[in-house]
């Protein structure tokens, strides 16, 4: 999965980040993001997503390993490259004494950009109270201002830390369509999320992080085609307990659940073994085999890596 360093827009190699001497937030993480790609960085709270992003942007220093953006070390990104980066932090802390418009104009001036894109984005996120002081705005409004701040200077690489947090479903859809539209223009997105559906809708590639370790990097397509199936076996109700017992002990079977006249489970082993196992069971009324959702795949990676979860 290693990409050529010269073509990757983001290259993180063996990144390790400790807070203090004992707390390891990111552990030997390696990933790359190619131009025009939408990369979803998936994991629950505290997995190390934000720390990775902050190391990537040079806000934090790596304990070991390297992080590069467009071939430049994160600790030494020149201004002309910084100009091509848009960043939305995980939390919207803005200058309270500004109005929304003042805040946007302030950042536009720092990037020395024209306000064409800004106006386009304001029109898209309709309903932002740009003339009100920031301290009076709701979390959703602040998020939208943060989003415009990240994109208004027309960057080529956009790094978003949980972009849709605090947005209502309608505004979330606006964000999704905006990301898709920008990607068509050649923009690259690297965003963290614990929202699986948005990753499934948006991303080309997904990296799953757990306890600071990247446990899987895969295209969404391949991830969904993983050898994991949801299987439901329908039978006589009185057979359910014994069959459940058999499935619980079988290799490759997890998440066994019994209903009145059926047993459900997830299977990720060899299909011949599964067929053999099912053939031994008499009186099967019906059998359904489904592909799992991304959420179920995500949970599988989590439980595979650490049995405690």
């Amino acid at each position, binding site marked *: 999965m290693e990409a050529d360093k010269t073509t990757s827009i983001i290259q993180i190699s063996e990144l390790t980040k400790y807070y203090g001497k004992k707390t390891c937030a990111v552990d030997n993480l390696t990933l790359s993001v190619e131009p025009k790609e939408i990369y979803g960085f998936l994991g629950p709270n505290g997995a190390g997503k934000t720390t990775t992003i902050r190391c990537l942007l040079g806000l934090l220093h790596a304990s070991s390993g390297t992080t590069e953006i467009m071939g430049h070390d994160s*600790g030494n990104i020149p201004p002309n490259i910084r100009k091509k980066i848009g960043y939305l932090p995980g939390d919207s802390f803005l200058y309270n004494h500004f109005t929304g418009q003042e805040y946007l104009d302030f950042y536009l001036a720092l990037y020395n950009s024209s306000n064409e894109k800004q106006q386009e984005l304001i029109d898209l996120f309709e309903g932002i109270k740009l003339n009100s002081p920031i301290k009076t705005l709701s979390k959703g409004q602040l998020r939208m201002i943060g989003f415009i701040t990240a994109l208004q200077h027309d960057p080529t690489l956009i790094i978003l830390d949980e972009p849709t947090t605090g947005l209502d479903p309608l505004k979330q859809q606006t964000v999704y369509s905006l990301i898709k539209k920008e990607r068509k223009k050649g923009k690259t997105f690297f965003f963290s999320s614990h929202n699986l559906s948005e990753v499934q809708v948006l991303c080309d590639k997904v990296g799953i992080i757990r306890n600071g370790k990247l446990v899987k990097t895969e295209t969404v397509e391949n991830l969904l085609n993983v050898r994991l199936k949801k299987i439901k076996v329908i039978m006589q109700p009185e057979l359910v307990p014994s069959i459940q017992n058999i499935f619980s002990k079988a290799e490759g079977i997890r998440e066994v659940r019994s209903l009145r006249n059926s047993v459900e489970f997830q299977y990720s082993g060899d299909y011949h073994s599964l067929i053999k196992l099912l053939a031994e069971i008499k009186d099967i009324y019906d059998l359904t085999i489904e592909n799992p959702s991304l959420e179920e795949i995500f949970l599988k990676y989590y439980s595979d890596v650490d049995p405690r979860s």
Partner: protein
Amino acid sequence: MNLLNNAKIQLMWKFIKKDLYILLGMFVIIFVLIFWVGIMFPEVSDNGFYDALNELLKNPLYEFLIGPVISITSIRGWIALGWLSYSWWIGLPLGIYLGVRILSIEVSQGTADQLIVTPISREVILLSRYFISLIELLFIPCASTIGIVVTFIFINEEIPYSNLIAVFLLDYFFFIAVLTITVFFSIILIDLRKIILIVAGFYFVSFFSFTFGGMNPDFEILKNLSIFRTRNVVDVFVTSVTTDVIPNLVFLSIFILVFLILSYFWINHVEIKSRV
């Protein structure tokens, strides 16, 4: 390099805008305070108050406690020893506030993240904000000087212009020194409480070592340990010993430059830790 492009002007203006009313308020308060106390002097000095004070100071304990204000027998004495001593206590919190505002307040409020990733380098952010803080600090010695001049005119005292310039410069450089060490420690520590403790501690040790050394000839050496030797400003104002001004300004300038240069080179090593 373009010294003042639009981005830098924005960076500075938006920064000062928030404090404009506070600074104007401080200016008015300082001016009114000097004027109000100043115009009382001719009246107070006529009713024997200072004779009683001088009698009291013969007691060593009282001399120790209020020795520094022994010269308060005239408006000049009050301004030099009374007002200027106290104006430095205004400089301490103001210098600390302006210093921590450059970076550590933003880190603690969570607004630094967005700023640090812009094309504006950390050094430019530091220097732009430092220089705008210098302008803000000017409000205090300006208010003092204007207050003194107006008061002297009002009570028909002769205005000691040459001394006023010296006092103005030393006062201002002292504020800059407080600002600069706060900037330095705020970059090293980021944590607001630690910065305030260290800078205030630094100031108090310095202040008291000078005061104690100044009052006791046996411990004169303590004077030299004091960073804020501008308390010599008192001598400057009262006795016109202007020879102290230049060495003090040179000393303070070196002190300020050293801490500013250290801050300039250290700022790129600062970790902007997440607020949450």
